[in-house]
């Protein structure tokens, strides 16, 4: 009887110990794995072996890139970042490969800009439009990597009652938290309190189709490009008017955003962007990914 009890006790203790040991082991292996992963994504661009040797002389350039914005920056089947913005960044990294070591990390949209604050990233890539509030805290690139067109108000193709924000007064408009369209709508509400629209927050654009067709949202504000792609994805359920949600002097460019003080990086990358635009790489990438050339400013 006593023996049996001892045996059981020893068994239960052994169980705990093995559990803890396994966990510790898995913890250790975990860390090595993740660093290997980030390295592989960083040196995907070019001379993988050379990067390691010369790493000491190169400046590390930490790129935070969106993971849920098809086709600009999203994850492929192997969870590696891909998309138009990513390929532009890779083309730049080839140009600047001697000076910088590019480390690309995919992350959720809402975590990108704050990653600049915390020093996690030097540059955030998520097809950022220009807003004065962002420009206060961050450094904008001077060169756009594409022009996404003016911001339009999109609505179900069966509707005729909405033409502009004034006609959408009191109506529900879907927007993503922290996005350009949110800031445009908030600005509208602030300036036109008697014609305010109702903001409905959505996590990402995948729910727009359901929301618009079911009537949950009256409208959706996005760049012309976004509206076109969204509508096309679901058999043209949405249309938009000529009304420009942004101001007419707005250049509707998509920019890389840097942390304040990263001026040197910004200038180097902008210079590379100009080269890419001139040698036709940007145009080619735009045609591959976006189906047309979006690299010229439509308002210029």
């Amino acid at each position: 009887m006593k023996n049996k009890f001892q045996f059981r006790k020893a068994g239960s203790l052994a169980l705990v110990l093995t559990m803890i040991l396994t966990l510790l082991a898995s913890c250790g292996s975990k860390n090595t794995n993740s660093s290997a992963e980030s390295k592989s994504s960083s040196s995907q661009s070019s001379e993988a072996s050379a990067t390691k040797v010369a790493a000491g002389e190169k400046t590390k350039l930490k790129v935070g890139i969106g993971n849920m914005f098809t086709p600009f920056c999203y994850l492929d089947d192997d969870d590696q970042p891909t998309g138009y913005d990513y390929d532009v960044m890779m083309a730049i990294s080839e140009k600047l490969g001697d000076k910088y070591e590019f480390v690309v990390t995919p992350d959720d949209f809402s975590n990108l800009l704050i990653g600049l604050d915390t020093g996690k990233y030097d540059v955030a890539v998520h097809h950022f439009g220009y807003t004065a509030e962002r420009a206060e805290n961050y450094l904008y690139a001077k060169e756009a990597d594409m022009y996404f067109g003016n911001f339009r108000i999109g609505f179900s193709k069966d509707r005729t009652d909405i033409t502009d924000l004034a006609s959408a007064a009191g109506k529900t408009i879907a927007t993503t938290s922290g996005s350009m369209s949110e800031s445009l709508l908030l600005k509208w509400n602030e300036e036109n309190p008697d014609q305010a629209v109702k903001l409905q927050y959505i996590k990402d654009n995948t729910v727009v189709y359901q929301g618009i067709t079911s009537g949950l949202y009256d409208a959706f504000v996005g760049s012309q490009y976004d509206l076109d792609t969204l509508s096309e994805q679901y058999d043209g359920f949405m249309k938009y008017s000529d009304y420009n949600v942004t101001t007419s002097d707005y250049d509707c460019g998509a920019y890389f955003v840097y942390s304040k003080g990263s001026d040197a990086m910004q200038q180097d990358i902008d210079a590379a962007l100009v080269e890419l635009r001139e040698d036709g790489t940007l145009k080619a990438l735009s045609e591959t990914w976006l189906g047309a050339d979006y690299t010229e400013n439509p308002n210029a």
Partner: protein
Amino acid sequence: MLNLGYFLDSLKAAVSYIPQNLFMSLMTLLICCVLGTLAAMARVYQVPVIKPICDFLLALLKALPQNLVLLIVYLVFTITFSPIMAFLGVKANIQNVDMVYVAIAALSISSLAGVSEVIRAGLLSVGKGQYEAGYTVGLTAGQTFFHIILPQTIRAVIPPLTNSILSLVKATSLVSVIGVMDIMNGAIVAANTYYSYIEAYVAAALVFWVLGIIIEIASRKVEIHFSRSVKQLA
């Protein structure tokens, strides 16, 4: 490091949504209590057919992450609302349905199993002798349940249910995944202009913390109160 101004903005927004979170959690609790009691009764009294269904459903619901339930309920709701209303011949506009109720429905689904389990334990805690006593004085089964069993069950489940309120309040922080405003989402939206998310999350955590402490103190008081009355009766 932390910007006090941004922090206060977020804190103010977070505080203003406290009623919203409380409303959602209390409504959820109410729904779970009603449905949970029915499910618990079916299981305790071994109602044929219904018992295995309840067993299966509760086990399933308990096994799903709450944010996933929220997302699925939300998507299913938007997809099926109009067709169902058309089928029923009801003229209803989906916009008149406040998303808060969709959130409450989803939270109820994912909290049902836990609440039902508490009620089941409460029902089981009432001794067999109580039923026999009821029948002996000539009460019907229904009368015995409502006049004798239920009051004792309620007294037994109130202390553990006050604990559930804390879990429910915490669960309401997930409604932001379907865009419903709450303490956390309010703090974040206030931070969107300047991306002051650190301040926002600290503010939200602080509000939840204070709320949680108050709920804990209240539930401890309730517990003491009820254990005292049990003693007096005994």
